[in-house]
């Protein structure tokens, strides 16, 4: 009886710590989910003299994937993106974040290019508009141009199957 109270307190503490271990402090919920995706107009990576406007994507569900050749974890998710683009389920647009075009092109040549179009953001300004603070990040944007989901960090099979693909299906529906 004497030790019951400290033991109970200890168990509660362990419970808190266990939950704390599972939290991901790096994944900060984005206030932009549910809000219109910031509009950008930026040169394409492959054809720098052509400008892509995100407005052109209204009416379709699309993914915006923030990537860079210097980003190590982008390499991790890249095969999945290549596979996804081959499936033709959803167009993936790339935001080449704070990168050098020649390195970016070389990187795509080496690992494959899953992007319908990649636009460049050499100074990270579009990134700031989208609340990007780590690369890679992936946004699911619906037909009305509203951000419906933000994936922070590399896309994984699990996040694709559990969240992204069902959401795309629902939005396309």
């Amino acid at each position: 009886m004497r030790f019951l109270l400290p033991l109970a307190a200890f168990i509660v503490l362990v419970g808190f710590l266990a939950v704390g271990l599972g939290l991901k402090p790096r994944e900060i919920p984005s206030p932009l989910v549910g809000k219109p995706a910031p509009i950008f107009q930026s040169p394409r990576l492959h054809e720098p003299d052509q400008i892509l406007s995100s407005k052109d994507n209204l009416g379709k569900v699309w993914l915006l994937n923030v990537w860079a050749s210097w980003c190590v974890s982008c390499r991790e998710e890249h095969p999945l993106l290549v596979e996804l683009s081959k499936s033709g389920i959803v167009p993936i647009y790339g935001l080449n974040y704070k990168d050098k075009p020649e390195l970016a092109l070389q990187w795509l040549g080496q690992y494959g290019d899953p992007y319908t179009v990649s636009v460049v953001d050499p100074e990270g300004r579009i990134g700031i508009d989208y609340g990007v603070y780590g690369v890679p990040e992936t946004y699911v944007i619906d037909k009305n141009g509203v951000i419906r989901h933000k994936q922070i960090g590399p896309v994984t099979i699990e996040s694709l199957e559990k969240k992204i693909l069902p959401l795309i299906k629902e939005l396309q529906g």
Partner: protein
Amino acid sequence: MTPDLLNTCGRKQITLLLILALISPLSWAKEAAPVAEDPVIEKRMLALSEDLRCLVCQNESLAGSRADFANDLRREIREQLKEGKKDQEIIDFLVTRYGDFVLYNPPIKPTTYLLWIGPFAFLLIGAGILFFYLKMRRRQVEEPPLTEDQHRHAESLLKEDKGNNA
């Protein structure tokens, strides 16, 4: 200073370095000018970014972080200040993009009630437990009065003691 540098330095050089370190704040102020361009804006930018969190190294402020990301945001703040935006407008700009998490001084609203009130609630709970514990303890520690027999026994012991000492 890197360990390498220390090893190559003789005592004289170290003295020289120390002297340089002492007078350098003055010289730095001059060197920093071209980057800052406008000292007033730079000062406002620093004051603002002291209260903002760098999302990459989360225990650093935007002002103190050397992360590339913090650099970008400082540039953004600087530019917006130059455009004549008010501090609050810039804070709102960042909060709509990064959420309350960028604020070191988050607003009081339902999602942050626990954060703001929690510590005081715990203090109150702790004080309550302490109060009841002390009350209970006093009751336990309080000596029950002696019975008639014990009283007599004690009395006789005391008398005996006095007799021995005399």
